């Protein structure tokens, strides 16, 4: 009876599956150049890279002859895997809500992102609020539950939004076609957006002072009643303390500068500017602030604030010394961030490594996870993607994706499994048809 054997091996597989050797490939490490050779993964982490590597215990060997290996792609702006509306648009400051509460690990977009080479994504609240909700970083570990997707140790974030989007609820007619009954919500202008942010931090400072006083009393040995926890202000307190990253959606140069100055005034840092399509106009100021910039490769003109967007934005900001990443903000676009990176070579003349960095090590740095992911270096997580061609070519296809050294996507398996899936579905459809009464209308003719 061979069955028990198979079961036993299958039980071992999860353990062994984290020891992998990918050999004969072109390995683009991003940070340490490109080489021909192999990469070994042991216990889920990158162990060794070189022309030849030591074979870890019981490693699965993958011959990637003629293929390319890059670090797993990191999308710094995504809204996938969320249950319900990505916006809590009813109030101007919604920092009490948390994307972490509504992770949907069964969103097929996760799998599709994997199939596009994405292994980590920064899942954000929408842009309907000057101060939006709390955000989270996920790994695309398809098949795990909500908790299992969370990127352990990644600093949590919060979403801010400047420009047209957060003002829209203040101007119901701007919600073209949607219900005009929506009551107007302050702010309706960019001035109001700034005021809203300042006011919120004003309150947050007072809240923080309350808690600092409480902590001081406790340190002195007293037992006061703690202040009331206010989730909205708590998130902003964490921003003030540097424990929560600010990811700010912004477009125009004026609002970018505005936020940098507000941050200075209140003593916090903007971690990333998102979209930042006019970032090239205030590049020196952004560089001085230390904020990262996460932008589109070539979106423009869909809104007035995007009218001056240029495809050279990433290159210009990069040249100014800003850490730049290219993101998707879209479940479809995230499937080909490799080609978005290639556009940075076309528009601005960046090198292969510079371009690839924009979807790997740069977003990793922006999210504070570059000690774990973003490049192929020993000690980092085994998050790797195998392409059949140079990933900066738009003819390239993702073949395999590893996260933590475990195979999460395999194009061949995906294709092989399709007939069975389709059959299974057809069976259910047929079964249901049989149990139903005959439909009233037959195949209707086209007159």
């Amino acid at each position: 009876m061979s069955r028990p054997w198979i079961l036993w091996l299958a039980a071992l597989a999860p353990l062994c599956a984290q020891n992998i050797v990918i050999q004969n490939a072109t390995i683009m490490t991003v940070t340490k150049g490109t080489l021909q050779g192999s990469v070994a993964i042991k216990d889920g982490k990158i162990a060794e890279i070189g022309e030849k590597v030591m074979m870890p215990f019981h490693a699965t060997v993958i011959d990637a002859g003629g293929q390319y290996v890059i670090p797993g792609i990191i999308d710094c702006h995504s809204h996938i895997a969320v249950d319900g509306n990505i916006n809590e648009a009813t109030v101007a400051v919604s920092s009490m809500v948390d994307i972490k509460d509504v992770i949907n690990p069964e969103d097929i977009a996760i799998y599709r992102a994997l199939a596009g080479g994405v292994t980590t994504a920064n899942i954000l609240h929408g842009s309907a609020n000057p101060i939006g909700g709390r955000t989270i970083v996920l790994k695309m570990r398809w098949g795990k539950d909500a908790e299992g997707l969370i990127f352990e140790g990644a600093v949590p974030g919060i979403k801010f939004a400047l420009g047209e989007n957060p003002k829209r609820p203040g101007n119901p007619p701007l919600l073209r076609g949607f219900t005009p009954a929506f009551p107007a919500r302050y702010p309706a202008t960019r001035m109001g957006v700034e005021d809203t942010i300042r006011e919120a931090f004003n309150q947050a400072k007072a809240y923080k002072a309350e808690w600092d006083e409480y902590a001081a009393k406790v340190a002195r040995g007293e037992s006061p009643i703690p202040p009331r926890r206010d989730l909205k202000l708590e998130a902003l307190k964490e921003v003030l303390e540097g424990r929560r990253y600010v990811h700010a959606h912004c477009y125009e140069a004026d609002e970018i500068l505005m936020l940098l100055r507000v941050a200075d005034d209140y003593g916090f840092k903007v971690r990333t500017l998102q979209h930042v399509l006019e970032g090239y106009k205030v590049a020196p100021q952004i560089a001085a602030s230390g904020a990262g910039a996460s932008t589109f490769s070539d979106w423009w003109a869909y809104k007035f604030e995007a009218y001056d967007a240029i495809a050279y934005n990433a290159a210009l900001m990069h040249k100014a010394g800003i850490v730049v990443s290219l993101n998707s903000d879209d479940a479809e676009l995230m499937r080909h961030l490799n080609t978005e990176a290639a556009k940075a070579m076309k528009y601005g003349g960046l090198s292969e490594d510079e371009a690839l960095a924009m979807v790997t090590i740069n977003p990793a740095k922006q999210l504070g996870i570059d000690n774990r992911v973003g490049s192929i270096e020993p000690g980092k997580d085994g998050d790797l993607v195998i392409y059949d061609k140079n990933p900066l070519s738009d003819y390239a296809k993702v073949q395999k994706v590893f996260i933590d050294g475990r195979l999460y996507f395999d194009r061949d398996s995906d294709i092989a499994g399709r007939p069975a899936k389709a059959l299974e579905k057809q069976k259910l459809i047929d079964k249901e048809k049989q149990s139903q009464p005959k439909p009233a209308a037959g195949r209707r003719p086209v007159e």
Partner: protein
Amino acid sequence: MRKLLPALLLVCACAFAENPRTLAIRNAKVVTVSGPVLAKATVVVRDGLIEAVGEAAPIPAGAWIIDGEGMTVYPGLIDSLSTVGIPSLAAPPAGRGGRAPTTVAPPPTPAPGPATTPAPTPPVRGPEDRPATTSWLLAADEIDPSDHRIESVRSAGFTTTVTFPARGIFGGQGSILDLAAVEHPGDMVVVPAVGLYIAVSRPGAGFGSTAGFPGALMGYIAYIRQVYLDAEHYKLVREAYARSPRGMERPPYDRALEGVLASKRVLLPANRLVEMDRMLRFAAELKQPAILYGMREAYRPEAAPLLKKYGAPVLVSLHWSEPPRDPDPEAYRTMRSLEDIDQGPAAPALLRKAGVPFAFYSDGLDQPRELQRAVKKAIDAGLARQDAIRALTLSPAEFYGVADRLGSIEAGKIANLVVTKGELFDDHTEIQMIFVDGKQYKPAPEPPPGAGHGAAEEPGVSQ
């Protein structure tokens, strides 16, 4: 003429006379639920309670004897999540074996009695405005015995409902009601407060509506979390003040938080596996004993182990996913929705097998035929009949802490009984009589096919 008069008198007597307070159903098959099935036994009822059950149970003198030959006696069924008794409420919006209700039901009209949260003007600014929160309400205070659904549901064999003021986010606490035809609503109440009904969506609310915060699911969760944080803080402050009020600023009275603190458990909606996981974690975070309701995807292999891990009891909706009626033959059907329809009714059997405690609830079904068929579906899909019965009797009694007085045929328990010809939930079985608090009721005649909900032509209920 001579023969008519006594007959007439007898009829009048039956119609108007008080039901005898002592009765015995003799020689019936008795499904006690708490013990073995008795093939031929007697159930003695006195003063609304079961006095004795057994093959040789002594029948008191003067008792009204009902011949139970060929009949089966079951404990009265308990609907573990209902709105019956509050006529203004439709079925609990969330949990219906289907999708979230944002587009389905129109906003419920405000119930009479205590003011509920009206359509907000000005718009809700945030959690501090306590949107859609009436946590201090008890269903017991809103009962209207003239709710036509009472008779309909009772005719299906339900003697008891756990009725909740299911509206808004924190609608209030549910009450256990015996479906007796009484004048005073208070006479129906078995237990006035059994737990808070919490919803994470509202019909007509959301982006673009006038309802205000919260709009997104995460908004609801954040709001509920904030309420519980506030309640914890409120309790701290209140207790500190009670200990030594001198020199301390007096805390305000917050009836919403009082309501939350008064509740000993919460009901949370979960249909999809992802929602089950989410709600179980959430309840653990809030440190609230929770009962999940809905359970549409409970058939999935991951569901039972997850539920077992947390040990939370669950309420399974009887409103099974149905194939769309008159669908476009080429409309896209997801695999998940097909599986929901195909395997949904198999969930109870799987839960039983895994040892996950569960009960059924009507989820808006209030016609006897609908309810019977719904339970039968689960039985056909593999649930043992006795387990189906338990899911409608002793299990819900246990979940709500009233197993000492409801849910089985045992001496000392409330005399809620269903008497049938044939096995309960089979297609041709007829319910002969129902006893609520020891009073006999006849099932209302079935409305003719195509008639509206529960509009019985004749009053079929005997006193």
